[in-house]
């Protein structure tokens, strides 16, 4: 069973990398870019016979993948 965990900076937290990429693209002449945001996408595959996969992935995301001080995350089960 595959889960996608998307981890992203909270809204309004400065993302200097996204800013630098955007600025550089524009400086190099790429037009009509409005914004760039960056997230990390984890795909965690859990054995099918696990009794509580949803709980497990939530715990993993909470404890290991996202930093609650600065980040938010979302979980999606990927199509079979």
């Amino acid at each position, binding site marked *: 069973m595959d889960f996608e965990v998307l981890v992203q900076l*909270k809204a*309004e*937290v*400065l*993302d*200097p990398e996204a*800013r*630098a990429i955007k*600025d550089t693209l524009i*400086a190099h002449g790429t037009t009509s870019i409005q914004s760039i945001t960056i997230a990390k996408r984890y795909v965690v595959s859990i054995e099918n016979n696990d009794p509580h996969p949803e709980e497990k992935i939530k715990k993993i995301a909470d404890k*290991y993948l996202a*930093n609650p*001080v*600065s980040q938010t995350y979302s979980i999606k089960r990927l199509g079979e």
Partner: protein
Amino acid sequence: MSSIAFPKMTQRVTKPPLINVADKDQLSALLKRHKISTDEFDKILSATGRAPTLAELGVFSAMWSEHCSYKSSRIHLRRFPTKGPKVVVGPGENAGVVELEGDLCVAFKMESHNHPSFIEPYQGAATGVGGILRDVFCMGARPVANLNCLRFGARSHHKTPTLVAGVVKGIGDYGNCVGIPTVGGSVSFDETYNGNCLVNAMTVGLIHKNKIFKGYATGIGNLVVYVGSATGRDGIHGATMASDSFEDTAGASKTTIQVGDPFAEKLLMEATLEVLEKGLVVGIQDMGAAGLTSSSFEMAGRAGNGVYINLDHVPTRSANMTAYEIMLSESQERMLMVIEPGKWTELQGVLKKWQLSHAVIGEVTDTGRMQIDAKGVLEIDLPVAPLTDEAPVYERRMALRRSACDESSPLKKLRERLSSDSGYALDLYKKMIVDVGSKKQIIQQFDRHVGGKTVFDSERGGAAVIWIRSRDTTHKPFLGLAITAGCNERRVKNSPLIGASEAVRDCARAIIAAGGLPIAVTDCLNFGNAEDAEVMREFSDSVDGIAEACQQLGTPVVSGNVSLYNATGATSIFPTPMIGMVGKMDDVRKAVPATVESGQDLLICTITARSAGNSSLAASLAAKNANISPIEGAITAIDWMEEKKSHEAIYSLQKSGYLVAARAAGEGGIGLAAFKMAVNSVRLGASLEILTSDVSEFFGEGATAFLVAIKPENLRAARNIAEQSQVSLKSAATISRLGQLEANRRFGVIKTCFGPISTEDLLASFEAFMPVGTT
């Protein structure tokens, strides 16, 4: 266009809403959130002559905060010796500056970022490094070295691994990217820091005497220029403004964590140094704590002028930011400059080259007031002085901590056990070694070589040595700096007065051991709750201890920082007055390392002043590892006459060229100091034999000043030299090349009077220093 006049606000749309002082409940909630006492609010009212606006209240809250105003510490800090023939800029400026040789000066300062690092270790530590770098380069000094002093909770505490991993990575990623080598510091673990880690960062920079810039908003009509990253709702000071009746004006925003951008910092640094070199600004200050508020008020305050700012011109990152938010944002990598209008075009050229956003946001006025418009509303209209020079000063209550009843009994027991049970002694020794730990896992994450000036860094232990190596030929070609920082908090806890003196003395010893001459001191005074009378007494005594040592050593305090309220519930941290010291090296080729790196046969000798106090186990590393609290037992005051004799001896020994290595004896007694000195050669296969069999000397701290490594054939001559300074030099250990029998061992052996130690295991635990954690 060669100059620009700032477009003043002519038409104000509305009057700003004032705080309703009649609503007592609401007012007291508001004051509480802003950490303003009712007495302080009365002072605010008399300064403003009316009820303040919300933004004004925020400004008072920030400027009168402990962090900005030093209100609890100020009366004590006055006791520091701050003057001296080498002092060019003393405390009160962004960084202290002392003369090194001729016009060449050193600017340096240490600052705390404890609280943010505990909340978010990576960003907290990174932005701490960013802040201290800006303090130094905004004076026009080019940073050449970073150091950091870290204190974490017990290794076994569940938070410690994550904190260590995050803080170390944060410091490394920031300093490495900006390109300033991180060459030294200190770190230790103790349960006293379980709820309050300490992250103190220090930067040392080079500057020419006639090119020092200060934070003065001088010249009526001069422009106030904002430079650097846009302002977001980052780390807004104090509480968020959710007060019902103010919702409309306050925007009720959530504050977000401050994120460091070392790339932006590097650009800001290059631009700032270029702008200052070209003389394009009159005054400059970084926007550190309390951001635009403290930088603008302090610059105006120092110059005795007023400043007008229109916040509509401030580059912002978030939409609809209120005056309150813009004024109190602590977004990183920003600078405030005051320039003559005629310099605008040239300034803009430099800032554009370095891709920095910038804007004229105001001008210097003769009103003595800070007047700030936003969206057609005069949000702030305050006299400058009450917020700066006339900020409240408190003489907090002090009380001497009652000491434990039978001070010496646990120590006596420890001493007896160590003398009678060699298995126990050996175990305790190993425990101490592992507790101190190799700093390898930390320092490998720091670029220690960028800049090409590093002669000795943390890899060699002891003080760092930096080779000035400039193309400027007015100074000696091998001129350098010796730099060190730290403090033994257990000893300060034991006796704040003596322990703090020792912290200064130990820094001086490290510099002297490296071959340097101590010049001046910076400090970062980390203490607990200022409203706890015992904590304030610790603070006051520590100040006196530092003052005494600085007086004795001729090393004035030229900059520093105070961090109070490092407490969790009723428990305050051990008093931790971190000391940073800079010394001069006339010839870095003659620098003496603190460790032996070769397998050659050597003698390790102690340098002990004749009437030095007894070695004491009180508050020692041995006591810590035997779980004896530092409150018990006493340490003896420093005999400065004798101390100076040992310094003299080291200088003479250095001149003689006999010193292969030298280090301050410091914590952990001769046992640990000898281990530190020899560990790298043990790794190469040499063996270390510690001859000392006296438990007090082996484990105790206090009596021995230095350890030196010399060739055996020089013993007699070296002893003669030491005796001329009236100190004794005794062999305490030997390092010897491996013999035939041991030739196939990977590491050498360590022998002590308690028995031999299997180095394979010991070195593995010594190096597995960092609690494993992820960031």
